[in-house]
């Protein structure tokens, strides 16, 4: 690393959220201040395990979202760094890269991209485990417990690592126009170029934490807007390129709270970011942020793995009949009981191949057992019979059986003998999707943070041969 002689200026946004309509004006403002790298995250676990397990990609069109930013970066000759694919395994990254191909072709761009994949092959992990790697759970008291086993790896449908800044730094050093990764630590994307230019990890990580959600850290917060910062050896200044928003001490400190269990401590690969003594001072143009500490730790990456649990089918019914609303949970309990006791389903329920739950929106659909209200207080409610079974046929059959019991099942003081509730959808049983769990949420120690995640420098739009090979 070299001593930083010049500030490193970052333009940040979120690439899984569509940019605001006026974004090109604000991008131009930021480039007027100077930009050395454009960075945006587009992966996360907040969507749950479905996407990771299924390999399907959220319909966010991340390539379209980056268009105005890539256009500006190319025009100014500065690199961009994006993570793509939400769950961020190879299938998701490839879906985004195919859209990026089309974007480059449509715009007439010819760019070299360092593509960094972060899906880990099962043989790689089983070899690490066999060699004695201690892969411990990352969550304390919830989520997968116990050390990662070879059986866990084999049972998972797909496993990704949240790569740190190092593989991105290695890719940037190859002089590419941009780096596109799969699943990655959000702040690591922001840390990469500053660290290459000698900015201390504490400053780079602190800035990354404030920039990672784009304009959300401004006031008013909006992830469809961008955010700008200039980093030096001691700290950084944050500004809002959008004149309708401002960077304020409160908006920035509030943002350090966002989606974090602890307000000032954050464990990252190779270190802990400590903001206990961070200082935020208003400037004429924004807010100056200093005082972060980086406490070195052994290098680990977080692994996320998903495993198939079954197939979901639902049936939905609207209830507006007062006598039924007054006893709606008793009525759905009776339908569930009939289903559980029927000879067709009892065995599957007993051995866990079939599970049934009934949500009642208008009663306890949001909080479940934690809901203090025990009666419907409004004039209508929605009943969602939710079935997860080992396969689609069983899920649909059980959901239909449950629907019929709800539709015709007797209840005390019933006057509605021609049908109990309103069916809004046909088919009344809606096949939803395969169902997955997070079966792996563990920390993998690495001696070399780059080696498992090499960059493949690729020209976009990719040629026919590349596309055929699915590179």
């Amino acid at each position, binding site marked *: 690393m070299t001593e930083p002689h010049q500030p490193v200026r970052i333009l940040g946004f979120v690439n899984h959220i569509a940019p605001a309509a006026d974004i090109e004006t604000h991008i131009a403002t930021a480039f007027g201040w100077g930009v050395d790298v454009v960075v945006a995250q587009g992966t996360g*676990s*907040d*969507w*749950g*395990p479905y996407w990771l397990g299924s390999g399907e990609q959220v319909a966010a069109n991340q390539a379209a979202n980056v268009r105005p930013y890539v256009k500006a970066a190319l025009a100014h000759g500065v690199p961009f760094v994006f993570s793509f694919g939400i769950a961020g395994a190879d299938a998701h990254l490839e879906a985004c890269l195919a859209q990026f191909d089309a974007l480059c072709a449509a715009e007439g761009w010819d760019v070299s991209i360092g593509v960094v994949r972060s899906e880990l092959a099962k043989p790689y992990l089983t070899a690490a485990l066999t060699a004695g790697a201690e892969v411990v759970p*990352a*969550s*304390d*008291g*919830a*989520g997968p417990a116990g050390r990662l086993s070879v059986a866990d790896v084999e049972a998972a449908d797909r496993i990704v690592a949240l790569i740190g800044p190092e593989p991105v730094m290695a890719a940037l050093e190859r002089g590419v126009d941009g780096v596109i990764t799969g699943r990655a630590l959000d702040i690591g994307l922001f840390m990469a170029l500053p660290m290459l230019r000698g900015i201390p990890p504490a400053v780079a990580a602190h800035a990354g934490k404030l920039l990672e959600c784009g304009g959300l850290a401004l006031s008013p917060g909006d992830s469809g807007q961008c955010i700008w910062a200039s980093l030096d050896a001691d700290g950084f200044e944050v500004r809002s390129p959008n004149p309708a928003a401002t960077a304020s*001490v*409160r908006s920035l*400190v*509030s943002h350090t*709270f*966002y*989606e*974090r*269990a*602890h*307000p*000032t401590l954050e464990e990252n690969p190779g270190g802990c970011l400590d903001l206990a003594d961070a200082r*935020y001072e208003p400037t004429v143009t924004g807010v100056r942020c200093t005082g972060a500490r980086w406490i070195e730790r052994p290098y680990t990456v977080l692994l996320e793995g998903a495993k198939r*649990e*079954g197939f*979901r089918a639902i049936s939905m019914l609207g209830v507006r009949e007062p006598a039924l609303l007054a006893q709606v949970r008793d009525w759905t309990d009776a339908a569930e009981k009939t289903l559980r006791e029927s000879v067709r389903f009892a065995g599957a329920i007993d051995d866990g191949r079939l*599970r049934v*739950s009934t*949500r009642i929106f208008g009663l306890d*659909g*949001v*909080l*479940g*057992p*934690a809901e*203090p209200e025990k009666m419907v207080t409004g004039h209508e409610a929605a009943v969602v019979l*939710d079935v*997860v079974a080992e396969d689609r046929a069983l899920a649909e059959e059980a959901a239909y059986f449950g629907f019929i019991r709800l539709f015709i099942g007797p209840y005390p003081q019933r006057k509605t003998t021609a049908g109990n509730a309103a069916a809004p959808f046909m088919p009344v049983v809606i096949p939803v999707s395969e*169902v997955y*769990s*997070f079966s792996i*949420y563990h920390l993998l120690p690495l001696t070399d943070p780059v080696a498992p995640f090499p960059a493949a420098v690729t020209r976009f739009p990719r040629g026919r041969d590349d596309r055929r090979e699915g590179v």
Partner: protein
Amino acid sequence: MRLYDCAAIIRSKNAGPFTVTVDIFFDDPAMFALARGSRLLTAAGVAEAYGVAPDTVKGIYWDERILAAKVSLLRWSSSTDRFCADLFGAHLHTPLAAGVLA
């Protein structure tokens, strides 16, 4: 007085798949002080509000600079569960918000 009525912002969200965090921002220093001295915003008070064990409350934090509090607890049902009703954890502030500050 309910916490909901004292706070300018009260929001919840996942902090990783298995933890939910509730951020509370106050406009009035007196309300911040009332909350900070309350039983509701203790591990025992939070556990009672959600009907969970006190050792699943991971922490309650205060920031005087911006008049803010943060409450983090393990999720009793998360996106890894088949029948989780709030995948992003965006509505889990409600039991705490309904709690009364002494």
